[in-house]
Structures are given as structure tokens and as C-alpha cells.
């Protein structure tokens, strides 16, 4: 067995960087969360107010509805992205003419900055000047107005997210798929397994860690989306698309209520962490059982 010292040495830079830029700011935010602090308000000093910020959160209707909307958004967006992304990654595994070209086209949305994505989708969907409401109106007589229709505004944020982030899922799953050994597939084919059986019993167990990692990344990114939704709907109509990232943004920037914003962030961070931890434990436990059997 090699010495663990080499292992720690290889981990050290990661721990150092994330320690400085991760833990230190976190502790600062945690400290602020226990204070009333509005640096641009009438009283710009930090005043210790115990758990008051947290107590206020429990009864904050805006916050609670924001959680519900965010979870709904994350659920629909991430689920569609993973299913669609896996399907596309499988298609890319086959040789066909123009594969390289299609792969490049498919990755294009990733290189458009979120703030630009939000702007374009907004210009495409604004009633009376956007191309999409215009076409829907002239082809189907359907009136799309995301300034009024909360359901459609929600659906559009989901579709925009799918458009923007499915390529990420495709790429990570593609990397996982091309790295798989070929023998188990050949063996399964010799044994006469059909495509569904191969997927369920051969492919899925092998790429489950990659799928899980991708779901995590997408989930936590969806939970803290700001720029895109900000540009597309501004959180409206009403509060229908005021997702958590945006909700905190609105507490901190127009209102400059840092104490309360910090407390909200800590709770959001905590909820995200617990959610991901539960998912992670569920999966690791299952993986452990499989190995034992």
C-alpha cells in the first residue's frame, strides 16, 4: 500500500483553495445572519439580534412560496434535462455522417452567457414584438403573454433552462458512456439481452455515479439560478418565477437588507445541502448493498 501522504498532498491544493474562498466567506455570512444590518439604511451599523432573522423567515410567505416554486422549477427542468441529455448522449455514441457538426451545434447554447440567454428569450417572447407569440398567434390563434400568464411564464423558464443546460448533461454522460468497457455489452448481447435489459442491467449500473453527479450539479445550479430568469421574467408575473436565487438577490440589492439576506442564504444553503446529502446517502447505501450481495 502506498503512503497516504501522497494522497493528502494531491488533495491539499483543492482543500486550501476551497478553504479560503469557501469556508471563510461562509463564516462571514453566518456571522452577518445573526445581525440586523442595512449598510445603506438609516442605521448603517450591525446590530446583534440573535435568531430574529431566522424567526422572521419561518413566517415569510414570499420566502415559503419561493421555495415551492423553485422546487417545482428544479424538478421539471432537471428531470427533462437528464432524460433528454442521456438520450442525446446515446445518439452521439453511434457513428453517422455529420456527427461532429451536430455535436458542435448541440453544445452551442452552453457558450451563450446566461444573461444573454435571458435577454434573447425575453425578446423572442415579449408580446407584440416577440417572434414566438407572433407565430403562435398567426398559426394557432393562441395568445401567449408571459407578462400575465403565470403558468406560461413558469413553463418558459423551464424550457429556457432545458435549452441552455441539456448540452451539459449530454456532454458529461457522453464522457461516461465512451469510457465504459465494451466487454459487458458484448457479453449481454451474446446472452440474448434486449435493448431495454441492456440499459437496465448493464448501462445504468455502470453510469449511475455519473448520472448522480450530473443531477447534483444541475439541481444545485437550478436552485440558485439568477441571471437568466431575471432577464426573462424579472421574477413575475406576481411571484410566479421568483426563484430562490432571485428572491435573495431582491432582498440584498434593492432593499440592501444584508442581515436578513444572509439568514435566507444560510437556510437555502442548508436546505440544498440536506436535499443533496439525502440523495447522496440513498445512492451510496444502495451501491454498498450491491457490492455486498
Amino acid at each position, binding site marked *: 500500500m*502506498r503512503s*497516504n501522504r*501522497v*494522497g*493528502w498532498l*494531491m*488533495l491539499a*491544493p*483543492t482543500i486550501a*483553495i*476551497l478553504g479560503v*474562498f*469557501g469556508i*471563510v*466567506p*461562509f463564516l462571514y*455570512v453566518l456571522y*452577518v445572519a445573526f445581525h440586523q444590518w442595512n449598510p445603506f439604511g438609516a442605521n448603517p451599523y450591525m446590530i446583534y439580534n440573535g435568531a430574529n432573522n431566522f424567526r422572521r423567515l419561518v413566517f415569510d410567505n414570499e420566502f415559503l412560496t419561493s421555495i415551492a416554486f423553485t422546487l417545482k422549477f428544479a424538478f421539471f427542468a432537471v428531470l427533462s434535462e437528464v432524460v433528454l441529455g442521456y438520450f*442525446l448522449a446515446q*445518439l452521439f*455514441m*453511434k457513428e*453517422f455522417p455529420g456527427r461532429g457538426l451536430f455535436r*458542435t*451545434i*448541440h*453544445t*452551442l*447554447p452552453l457558450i451563450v*452567457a*446566461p444573461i444573454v440567454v435571458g*435577454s*434573447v428569450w425575453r*425578446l423572442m417572447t415579449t408580446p407584440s414584438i416577440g*417572434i414566438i407569440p407572433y407565430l403562435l398567434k398567426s398559426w394557432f390563434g393562441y395568445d401567449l403573454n408571459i407578462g400575465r400568464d403565470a403558468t406560461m411564464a413558469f413553463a418558459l423558464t423551464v424550457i429556457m433552462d432545458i*435549452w441552455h443546460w441539456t448540452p451539459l448533461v449530454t*456532454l*458529461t454522460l457522453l*464522457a*461516461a*458512456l*465512451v*469510457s465504459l*468497457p*465494451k*466487454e459487458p455489452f458484448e457479453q449481454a448481447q451474446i446472452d440474448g439481452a434486449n435493448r431495454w435489459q441492456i440499459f437496465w442491467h448493464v448501462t445504468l449500473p455502470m453510469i449511475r455515479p*455519473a448520472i448522480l*453527479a450530473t443531477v447534483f450539479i444541475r439541481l*444545485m445550479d437550478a436552485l440558485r439560478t*439568477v441571471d437568466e430568469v431575471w*432577464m426573462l421574467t424579472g421574477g413575475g408575473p406576481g411571484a410566479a418565477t421568483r426563484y*430562490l436565487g432571485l428572491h*435573495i438577490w431582491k432582498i440584498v*440589492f434593492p432593499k440592501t437588507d444584508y442581515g436578513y*439576506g444572509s439568514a435566507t*442564504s444560510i437556510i*437555502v*444553503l442548508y436546505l440544498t*445541502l440536506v436535499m*443533496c446529502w439525502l440523495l447522496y446517502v440513498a445512492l451510496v447505501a444502495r451501491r454498498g448493498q450491491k457490492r455486498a450481495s
Partner: protein
Amino acid sequence: MRANRPVLSILLWTLLSLFTLFPIYWLFVISVKPAVELFTTPSVLLETVYWKNYVKVLGDDTLRRYMFNSIVISTGNAVLVTVLAFMACYALSRFDLPGKENIFFWTITNRMAPAAVFLLPFFLLFTQVFVIGEWKLYDTRTGMILLYCTFNLPFAIWTLRPTIDAIPKELDEAATVDGATTWQVIREVIFPLARPGLAVTLILTWVFAWNEFLLAATLTSFNARTITTGLSEYVTTTGTEWGTMASIAIITLIPALLIFSVVQRHIVAGLTFGAVKE
């Protein structure tokens, strides 16, 4: 493997590409229209092309500087992150370190933080803590390269770990028995097999760094300002210069596409683990 059906594949891909390309096409349409035309009845096809936005953008020295900063920061960060994550994943996968699963999970928590509130401690770190005499970390490319590790490093570690875990341990053990050092094992055994994963990690971390907006907007002013932040300067409360913004956005696709086409070639199948002796 069953027979390929190229016609069906191509048809399917063409349909998907239409969905993918339409918003980008629309971005282009916005970039070649004078501002007044944006607010009239839309039409799918372009009748006239108005290049003034591009002339203005390409002649702007400031934007050229921002573009250069973006390329340096994204590339520097993506390379740094991929190397560090590769090392970290190798350590997590191959060594029996106590508490390593907790460390693994801890890394990802750094990506969960909602950005808005964390801007302030970052700002204080950059202007008050990392200061040596006249020099500050604020508004430096180095600062941004390091800072972007907070969201890219967890991402890279989480996407690379499955790839490295999937490489059979028998391969390194066989190489070690043959007298290879740890460094040789990494270079000769792990690296070639992890290449698709590394390529994807490099591409995606590059993309995240390239697209990042909030941190760059807060922690840079001019010297290290990135193009993503630069283009958002045209989105203001008094009215957005959509055409200018869109033309910058279209221009920024070019370096990104170049990097993609170089790196994507490494996402190839064909390497098998057939070398493992049963």
C-alpha cells in the same frame, strides 16, 4: 451492434438542431437590426442587414481588452481546475484516506451558495485581506482565476470522479508491480483512459468561467473585466442597447467555438479496458 440508420439519425438531429439554433439565430437577427426595428412586427427572415453594431463593437479597444481578459481567465481557470481536480480525484479514488467521502461531499457544498450574499465577503477578501502594499487581488486576472475555483473545482471533481473510479484498479496495480512510480501510473495509465472525462471537464469549466457574471461584475472594474460583464454594461435601467449586446454576444461565440472544436476531439470512444488480465 445493430445496424445504424443514418437517415433517421440525421433527420432527428436536424430537428433538434433547429430547436437549438433558433435562439442563437434570433440573437444574430437582433444583432443586425437597428434599434427601432426591434419593436415592430417580427418576421422570421431577415430583409435587410445592418452591420453598424459590429463596426462599433469591433472598433472598441475596451471590448477587445475585455475579450482578452476573458480568454486568459477562462483558459487559466479551466486548466488549473482540471489539473487540481484530476489530482484530487486520483487521491480520492486510489488512496484510503480517512474521511475522504466527507471531503468529497464538502467540495460540492461550495457550489450551493446563492451568489448574492456571498459577493460581500468576496469583495472584502479581495480589497482588505489579500493586499500587499499597493497590490490588491481586486481587479486582477489572478484573483478571478482563483475565485472561479469555488464553483468550478467542485464541479470538476464531481464530474471526473466517476471516470477515474471506473478505471480498474488492477491496471495501476499491474503497473506498480512492474516498477512504475505513482507519477508514471498517472501519466501512462490513468491519463489516457480518463481523456474523455478530462476533455469534457475542461470544456465545461471553461464555459462556466467564460459565462460567469455576478462575481466578475463585483470584483473587477477595468483591468480584469470580462467580456460577459462588458456586454451586460449595455443592459441598463435606462434602456438596453439590444443590438450592441447581441453583436458582442455573437462575437464571443467565436473563441468559444475554437476551443470547443480543439478539445471536443478528445471525447472519443475506442479505448477499452481490455488490457486487464482476468
